[in-house]
């Protein structure tokens, strides 16, 4: 796959890193001249993916979260958020709106938001091995 630029972040699953991760990805995406709305969508999707790692992948311990971004041709931002946590046994159930195994402070809308804010979205997971979220957003070229 040809890419124009890339970056990789690695950080522990502390909730204070949610803001760091979405801001870092937004800063990286800034070189693609996104609109405010596009930038907002990207920040939201990254925040959801990283929060999932913190809440679900590593429920009782700190683990490593990796975020990789690439700029592909046709102004596509490619984002992979990966953990080596507990994994998801039933992916379809996890993706269902309002479904959550978290407490009442979770809404169960994370995957719904990632799916609706990104151009493409893929979720793969193996129980005991970890979870990978792969999403892409095609940015409008401004005239």
């Amino acid at each position, binding site marked *: 796959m040809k890419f124009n630029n890339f970056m990789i972040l690695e950080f522990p699953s502390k909730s204070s890193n*949610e803001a760091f991760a979405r801001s870092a990805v937004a800063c990286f995406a800034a070189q693609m001249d996104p609109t405010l709305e596009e930038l907002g969508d990207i920040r939201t999707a990254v925040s959801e993916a990283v929060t999932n790692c913190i809440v679900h992948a590593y429920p009782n311990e700190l683990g490593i979260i990796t975020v990789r971004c690439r700029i592909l041709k046709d102004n596509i931002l490619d984002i992979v958020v990966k953990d080596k946590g507990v994994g998801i046994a039933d992916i379809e159930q996890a993706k269902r709106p309002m479904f959550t195994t978290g407490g009442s*402070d979770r809404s169960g809308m994370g995957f719904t938001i990632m799916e609706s804010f990104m151009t493409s979205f893929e979720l793969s997971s193996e129980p005991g091995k970890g979870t990978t979220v792969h999403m892409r957003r095609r940015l409008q070229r401004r005239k």
Partner: protein
Amino acid sequence: MQFTSFLENGHLTVALTGEIDHHCAKNYIQSIAGKIEAYTPDVCILDFQDVTFVDSSGIAVVINALRSMSQIEGKLVLTGICAQPMRVFRASGIDKLVEIKEAVR
């Protein structure tokens, strides 16, 4: 997490600020529930004017406030919502569950 609140004629206004994500959502949920329990207002207004970002954790904040207000048969109103939070609320369908007053900007 930072917020101010005031009570006037049975209307409790809670003004939220900054970015609402999982990191601060629990504190917001508990603080808002505490205010509603203490003041039992007829209407609770969540003012999002100074909120620059929400993710799905913000939805949980609204749903929990809605639950607290339903328990005392009161009403929840959201106001001052900027573009990014509005997109999240629309995507989740929460705009159909709660009254949203015209954004100030």
